[in-house]
């Protein structure tokens, strides 16, 4: 199945094409792939993050489906 993945802020550097930016890229995944498996395969750092699928908040163990739009946002400190 194919899933669009958008990585925000400094996570954009982890897009496999090396081009950066928050524009989503299409990923071919195994059926029943989870958000956590995508995070692991991209090698994202173990830092605080917020995950959305199709514009709704999602949890990392959630299973992805064909055509899903995954977005991962990492807040940074300061307030």
């Amino acid at each position, binding site marked *: 199945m194919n899933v669009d993945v958008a990585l925000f*802020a400094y996570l954009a550097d982890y897009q496999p094409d090396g081009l950066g930016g928050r524009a989503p890229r299409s990923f071919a995944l195994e059926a029943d792939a989870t958000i956590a498996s995508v995070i692991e395969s991209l090698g994202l750092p173990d830092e*605080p993050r917020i995950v959305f699928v199709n514009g709704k908040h999602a949890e990392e163990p959630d299973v992805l489906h064909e055509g899903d739009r995954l977005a991962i946002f990492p*807040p*940074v*400190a*300061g307030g």
Partner: protein
Amino acid sequence: MSPDPDGRLCRPPLEPDDDPALRARLAASHVAIIGCGGLGSNAAAMLLRSGVGELTLIDFDVVEESNLNRQLYFADQIGRPKTEALAETLLRITPDARLHLVQHCVTEHDIVELVAPADVVIEAVDRADVKAMIANTLLREHPEIPLIGASGLAGLDSANAVVTERLVDSYYLVGDLVSDVHLGHSLFASRVMVAAAHEAHAAIRILLGYPEP
């Protein structure tokens, strides 16, 4: 000859063409602010000055000297709980403001209950992991309440890089998303207050039914 022969420049400006229904709507509104530091203390004052009637102020900390360069506190308030010190100042601005003070460090177990009565929640904490906890907990358990978060307000990059955007349905984000205070960027009152103003204005727009782009 006087440059202002009629004295017009010395008269007070006309009152803005105000809308009583709009003001009534704000006066009946309740905003919860988690964190009363540089973002939260200044956003609270802006919300009250704009007419919001009720605030819940949540912070576990006390005022320190190092806060005075950007937070709405005064030297004679050092050592006092931030919630109490801020309330004292806010009531000087708006004596009939309805304030709820919570001197507490929020956790994922109690945050929903603490902010549940509010119409809008402003996240104004310092730590990235607490920002993530607040967003993950509220967006999961209370997605109907709009949440305004902040990320990326440190340093000396342009103030124009601080923006408000609607990341998803009920999650609004203020900042440049990248300027991390832990990467050696100092916090300047000018840029922190830009972000605080963005958070306060986003809350006002949400309360009045304006969508953010």
